[in-house]
């Protein structure tokens, strides 16, 4: 019988798992990371097995990625997020996507990966010591505006006059937003402004020298339609969104697991 392969992405906020067979995604599970990465990883493997009616022995290889990749005992090996995301794109990118740039917006970091025509990593850049341009930023602002992260995208799309948010630091931007709220600015405009400010911040990380190919968004951040729109507006280019963006790293890890497992 064909074996299953598992990719685990131990992110800063969520632990994501992807079950793969024949290099196709069979199922996905996401748990909050909490403080016990290793325990959550064990639970997630058990939950997946139960959900898809397989036993641990049916899983040929487990590959871990993400911040906690080194400590997940259930994993056979680990790989860096950069490589995992680059691999994930092979499965998650829409058919018409020509490999070029990948924008990944995670909970505590954002990265830009440049791919050659064969999906190999050419180069990459990551944000430094700063949460601006990450999922955390959205979360903080959403909280002030009494909404949740899954709502901010749709709300911001209703904005007619996005406001300026000038601070690039999360904490300063937070106080900026609080003063906007005090001035009774429509929260949809604030959210649209937040997305533009994030997009600008991430675009600054991009390398001018890397050209060619299309742009793809991955990571939990890509679930936010507002930030997607902001990127298209700021870059004046089409931006694709990966299938199951939140799981892109885990998909990549599962794909590498499949290769290691000898598919």
């Amino acid at each position, binding site marked *: 019988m064909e074996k299953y392969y598992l990719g685990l992405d131990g992110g800063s906020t969520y632990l994501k798992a992807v079950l793969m067979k024949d290099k196709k995604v069979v199922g996905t599970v996401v748990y909050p990371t909490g403080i016990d990465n290793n325990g959550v990883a064990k639970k997630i493997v058990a939950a997946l097995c139960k959900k898809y009616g397989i036993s641990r022995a049916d899983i040929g290889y487990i590959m871990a990625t993400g911040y906690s990749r080194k400590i997940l005992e259930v994993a056979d090996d680990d*790989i*860096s*997020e*950069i*490589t995992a995301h680059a691999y994930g794109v092979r499965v998650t990118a829409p058919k018409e996507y020509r490999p070029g740039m990948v924008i990944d917006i995670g909970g505590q970091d954002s990265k830009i990966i440049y791919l050659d025509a*064969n999906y*190999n*990593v*050419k*180069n*990459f850049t*990551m944000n*430094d*010591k700063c949460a601006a341009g990450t999922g955390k930023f959205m979360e903080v602002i959403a909280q002030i505006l009494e909404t949740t992260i899954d709502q901010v995208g749709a709300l911001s799309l209703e904005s007619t006059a996005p406001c300026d948010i000038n601070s690039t630091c999360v904490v300063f931007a937070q106080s900026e937003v609080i003063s906007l709220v005090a001035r009774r600015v429509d929260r949809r405009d604030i959210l649209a402004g937040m997305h533009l400010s994030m997009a600008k911040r991430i675009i600054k990380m991009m390398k001018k*020298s890397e050209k060619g190919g299309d742009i793809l968004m991955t990571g939990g951040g890509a679930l936010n339609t507002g930030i997607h729109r902001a990127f298209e507006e700021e870059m004046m280019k089409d931006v694709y969104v990966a299938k199951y963006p939140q799981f892109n790293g885990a998909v990549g890890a599962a794909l590498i697991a499949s290769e290691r497992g000898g598919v």
Partner: protein
Amino acid sequence: MAEPNGINERQRELFIRKSTRVAASYLKRAKALSEMPDAAKPFFDVLENIYIKLTDIEKPEDRKSIGTLCVMVPAELVYAAGAMPVRLCSGSYTAYSIGDDYIPRDACPLVKAVMGFGKVRALPAFDNCSLLIATVTCDCKKKLAGVIDTVKNTVPLHVPPLKKEDADTEVFLKELYRLIPILEKETGVQITARSLAEGINMVGNAQYEMSEFLKYRRHAPALMSGTQVLSVMNAYSYMPVSLWAEQMHRLNGEMKQRLEQERFVSRKNQPRILVTGSPIAFPNIKVPLLIEEMGGVFAADETCMGERGLYDPVSVIDPSFDGMMRALASRYTKPCTCPVFVDNSQRIYRMKQMIKEHKIQGVIYHVLRGCLVYDYEYQLMEEAMGKLDIPIIRVESDYNEEDVEQLRIRIEAFIELIKMHTSA
């Protein structure tokens, strides 16, 4: 009681406690990378003496120490004046945090560390320098020359920003001549044609041993950990040159043995990485350590605390005093690949040469925060590497340990990238 320096006894105690602990932990990690050659131990002992046991440099008592900054200060002249040159460019995180109070925020950490040692007076190798030759090179070093004067008797040495034309070398030659009476006054020893020739010879011997060593360093699989090699080169700053050359000769003997017995410290599939960019000075060896701890081979460095300071001997064509001085002026500017020079195309040539000789598969471009001149040249280097199909990544860092995890993920991903690149 507060001292004129602004650092009191208690602060100094705490400084020593912290700085020695940091230095010890990095030495330990460097030693643990792979089995160290026995002959490398004396170099590590030197770093331990200077940074942990806090002893002065091992040299005859009557020989004065003269501090230098940058690779453009000719050690030969200092030896000719009967003194011992000590390179004070430091990677101390602890001294950096002291210097941070005296140097503007956006300046590079290296000058902050130097200023920190100047203020704290806890490193005998530094404190016992009776004079400091501070180069006027990049903006940070230039202004450091201006402010370190408050804690140490300093003479600025002007390095011309241009180096192509003979007129540029003449400028530097004049500077070197200006240095002679200053050195002579400091040591009471006259610099003669004979002593200068001796100085050139002494340093030349070290460069010869270095060139021998590089033959072994180029070998793939590697014969010795690159971080350990860098530590050996860093120890050059704190050893009389003849002693360093002598120990290097022993190390070369052991490398030869390792080669004959095929005792390698790396495996075939480990990517060979070159590090270029801002200086990597002990104990700030986190980038080389991460490369090797994450499974790469730190196979070569194009930095001023490593190979650059040592690869090229002074070539004397005219053995008169002026001839030797001209040879010095030429050697310390023309082949130097420091980006303070306006036109530095040599650096690209040098890199191409090193990539070929050392069988390099990927380049890490190290930028210390605030080190503008190196950052300037990144784009040119990236372009050149692109043409050679050599992956390159820019890694920015500072003198603290807070960015280690961010560096780790970048370096790990880069190593994976090279592996896939070379297998593709």
